């Protein structure tokens, strides 16, 4: 019945809330002027790790690849998950990486954590970028079973297996909740609708105890923090950063049809001629390509 070791990989992202976000004249994000914060999906992953802490007295570690200021995200994640190990993987050569290059860094970083991991959590996606690829790619490189869209989980500490419920949304079919069982270690990409549930008084009290501990630790996060550059991490330089990234951003253009607030054409509902014109416009809209 050994220790349960949990890692969370997180991301520092722009804070999109009003009052914190800044936009350029062309409507694009002004990153320089926008505050950064722990990404919302990363935060949910941290909550999922905290569930493991409360229920199974797990040890939680957190890792992120980013610039030196990403230690803010680590501190915030520690506050949520009561983590005892914070890793920042930061080096110029990591820059420009696509998800494959990032996954290589994270995989190497997770191997450098003190304990051998039983569960690694990641958020469903980043709120900027939004590919949702980094999690599964890191999982594959680690050789862990990948489970996506997890909405709840429990661990059988005796048999070292995990049971989880996943939410599967496919187009054209109703949503499915799938219950699965897998031996540890696993990599879980947590669904945005994940909810921790603590049903017993004793669990609620433990929750509170660890929450307090988390706040104290986060206040002194530097005691738990290590930063690694490429050399210290021991990465293969051809597999990280731009050199290790198959994909690049080629260009960025304005979307042809803007979905900002509209100017309405007012039409008399009793005039059949005008109705005809409206329906013609409706048809045009249905024929055009959707931009989501």
């Amino acid at each position, binding site marked *: 019945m050994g220790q349960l070791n949990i890692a969370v990989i997180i991301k520092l992202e722009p804070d999109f809330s009003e009052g914190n976000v800044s936009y350029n004249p062309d409507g694009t994000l002004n990153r320089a002027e926008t505050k950064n914060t722990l990404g919302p999906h990363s935060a949910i992953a941290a909550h999922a790790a905290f569930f493991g802490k409360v229920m199974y007295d797990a040890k939680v570690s957190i890792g992120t690849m980013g610039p030196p200021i990403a230690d803010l995200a680590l501190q915030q994640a520690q506050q949520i998950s009561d983590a005892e190990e914070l890793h920042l993987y930061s080096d110029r050569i990591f820059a420009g990486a696509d*998800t494959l290059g990032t996954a290589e860094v994270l995989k190497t970083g997770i191997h450098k954590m003190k304990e051998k991991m039983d569960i690694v959590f990641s958020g469903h996606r980043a709120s900027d970028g*939004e*590919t949702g690829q980094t999690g*599964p790619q890191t999982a594959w490189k680690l050789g862990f079973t990948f489970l996506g869209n997890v909405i709840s989980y429990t661990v059988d500490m005796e048999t070292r297996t995990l049971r989880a419920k996943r939410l599967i949304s496919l187009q054209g079919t*109703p949503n499915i909740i799938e219950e699965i069982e*897998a031996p540890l270690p696993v990599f879980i990409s947590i669904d945005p609708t994940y909810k921790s549930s603590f049903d017993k008084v004793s669990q609620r009290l433990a929750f509170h105890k660890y929450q307090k501990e988390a706040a104290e630790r986060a206040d002194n996060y530097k005691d738990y923090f290590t930063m690694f550059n490429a050399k210290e991490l021991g990465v293969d330089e051809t597999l990280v950063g731009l050199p290790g990234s198959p994909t690049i*951003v080629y260009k960025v253009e304005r979307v042809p049809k803007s979905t900002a607030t509209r*100017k309405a054409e007012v039409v008399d509902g009793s005039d059949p001629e005008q*109705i005809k014109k409206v329906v013609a416009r409706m048809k045009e809209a249905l024929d055009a390509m*959707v931009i989501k």
Partner: protein
Amino acid sequence: MAEQFRHLYVVIEHEDGEFLPVSLEMIGEARRLMDDFNSKYSSKEKVVAVMLGHNIQDTSKQLIGYGADAVIYCDNPELKDVRNTIHTKIISQIAQDTETLGEIEVEYAIDIQRPRYMFFAADSIGRHLSSTVLTELESGLASDINQLVIEDIEMSHQQKTGGKKETYEKTLEMYRPDFSGFLWTTILCLDNRNPAFPRYYHPQSCSIIPGVFELPKSDSSREGKIIEFVPTIDTEDLRVKVLGREIIESEVDFETPRTIVSFGRGIKEEPEQNIKLVEQLAKELNGEVGITLPISKKPYPISSSLDAKYMIPDRVIGTSGHKTSAMLYIAAGVSGAMQHVWGMKDSGFVVAINPDEDAPIKDECDVFIKGRMEDVIPLLIEEIKKQIQIVETV
């Protein structure tokens, strides 16, 4: 080296013996792309559908009619439910299996190593599957794509080309909308031609947003190859057990339809009749019916069947319910409360029907039809019958 990578592989998703619409949409777009490609480059590369599952042999044949030139299927009881590990392993095996690749196009059997391009669906399954497959294949993936172009690209890039000008032939330009909704980012998966760390990266892959591309029509006269793939299965890859699957009953589907017709408290005068009008309008446009939050509280007495069907929280569009980006959104008798507007403002074309010109919805729509819905909707229905024919979706 040029003929190491040929063809476009499309990973098919299916549920209960039916193709998910996105699978066919991908085949349709793949067909279009490769027809252009073959004409532009005087080539004969193929659209190849890849399908894993159990008892799928017969179904897989239909893919030829929708536009595939070949279907590689793998039929095994272990593949009944999609489990990431085993599916990733097998798809990766298929993508690297020179024998299968050779069968598709015998002329290039000796040289061909992998597909040139690969498509997945951008849904719960495909997003993750594409990520792990491309990690196994050590190549590039762009996700949530809604436009594709194949071109020769001339460029110089510090890392990719070492600063020299290079021409990347037959490159797949993958367009994805960014999070702000204002920008379109184009992603390329390119070989490293930088002498410091040369590498090839194929297949160029992407996951495609459902509902973006047209559903193709089936042409039974089309012919193609059906190839069975027998995988190498390692029991280590089968350790995930699916204990059960529960369908969350939701009558309401706001994802698939391109049109949503919502009603609000404007039905007040004749609730029963007005709801039926809205129903009819939605039917004409093959759309789904949504409601505003107050309606879910059942404020007006109507027949219990209509009540149970429409005045339910599951139909709410807004902050307490669903967010939609339907192409056509019709708001009938909706005043335009902020919570509701939040749920529908990303729609493509918005039509509001309301007798009150001061209703806030006027600032959130493209056409404001001034009038009562009981008068306007019948006129609309008539006109729609004349002008618009909606193709039935699968």
